[in-house]
């Protein structure tokens, strides 16, 4: 079971409920915008406190209101690629990538990640100077280099033109197939969801 999540959480004006129980490698969460998909990811990452419920990923309990378990974000090992990327503007691409870097045996090295994502040539640049597609790949690289237990991708293809979007799409497919990380993907675009997801959860 990769994902065992059942949460009641505050989103916007009211409270929402969501349950995800799946053994699929990549689960897509979809629904109209404003419905609380990002809030859900924030709850799973530990950035937002749910009202009640539990979060178990890959067998590990990150949150359980009944048992009083609530791991802080830095202990949850979530690889979170934000919709607004959130690259650190005062640090180079290289420093951004290194921020959460873990040298875990068996996980990809820095060189491999740069190769995988095609961003080696950007090392000394500052985020403000990157294009949308480049920045996105740096954000994904930063998350991957922290040797996460699972991935959270929030609308990874927005504001990308078709060729870039296709590149990222293929990247995500490779991550899904080659790295074997449980991945939760939030997207409102049906096409992406179709292509990538082993299972789809609809929020309404």
């Amino acid at each position, binding site marked *: 079971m990769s994902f065992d999540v059942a949460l009641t959480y505050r989103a916007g004006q009211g409270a929402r409920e969501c349950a995800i129980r799946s053994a699929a490698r990549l689960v897509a969460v979809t629904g109209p915008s404003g419905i609380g998909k990002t809030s859900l990811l924030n709850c799973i990452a530990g950035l937002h406190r749910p009202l009640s419920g539990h979060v178990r990923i890959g067998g590990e309990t990150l949150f359980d209101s009944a048992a009083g378990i609530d791991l*802080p974000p830095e202990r949850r090992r979530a*690889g*979170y690629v934000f919709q607004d990327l*959130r690259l650190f*503007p*005062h640090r180079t691409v290289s420093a951004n990538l290194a921020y*959460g870097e873990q040298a875990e045996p068996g996980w990809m090295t820095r060189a491999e990640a740069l190769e995988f994502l095609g961003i080696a040539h950007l090392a000394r640049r500052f985020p*403000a100077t990157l294009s949308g597609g480049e*920045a996105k790949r740096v954000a994904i690289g930063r998350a991957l280099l*922290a040797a996460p237990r699972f991935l959270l991708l929030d609308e990874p293809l927005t504001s990308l033109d078709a060729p870039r979007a296709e590149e990222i799409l293929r990247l995500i497919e490779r991550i899904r197939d080659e790295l074997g990380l449980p991945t939760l993907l939030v997207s409102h675009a049906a096409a992406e969801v179709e292509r990538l997801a082993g299972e789809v959860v609809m929020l309404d």
Partner: protein
Amino acid sequence: MTAWPTAAEWGIVALSLKVSVLAVALTVPVSYALAWLLARRRFPGRILLDAAVHLPLVLPPVVTGWVLLLLFGRTGPLGHWLEEATGLVLVFRWTGAALAAAVMALPLMVRAMRLSIEAVDRRLVGAARTLGATPWRAFLTITLPLSLPGVLAGTVLGFARSLGEFGATITFASNIPGQTRTLPLAIYTGLQVPGEEAAVTRLAIISVVLSVAALLASEWLVRQSHGRRAHVL
């Protein structure tokens, strides 16, 4: 009238700078801590803290000096304790002048630093946390560096304010040549005695030059901060 300041006058400038450097050095960490509390934390009494921090800005400086005297005078609760515990006496000493200057500069510094901290995108701190940073590490590597230009601007402004501090200094630390007779006090003393016009003019010019330099530096630092503000969406 000789245009160039005498050795004694340079001594006064040196004392002023010494007092202001100590005042600011003490106040920077305190100001930052207060600024951070007010910018990032909700707690009961927050409004009162905010008001208390701003008091020296709006109270007549003489009143602030008088309150300092009540607290830190040799017979005051804090002053007495300080003397018993460390032998340190603040009244009549340049350290007392520094305390008066620090208290007067505090509100300006807190305001500038608070604006700067509020401008740091909290979402970046969240991102750092998911990458494994403890709250302290996230503060040191994200909030602090990004708020730095505002901190520097506030520090320079506080320094300028300290240089000009008069009312609280003369009321609390008195007007002792060589210890607490800073630039503004020396100008005031010179004005009391007919015949000191030349010295007063020289000191006043120095005062203006220092203030203008500090304001320009502060402005420049604020401009610098606008370079690194935006982050990629």
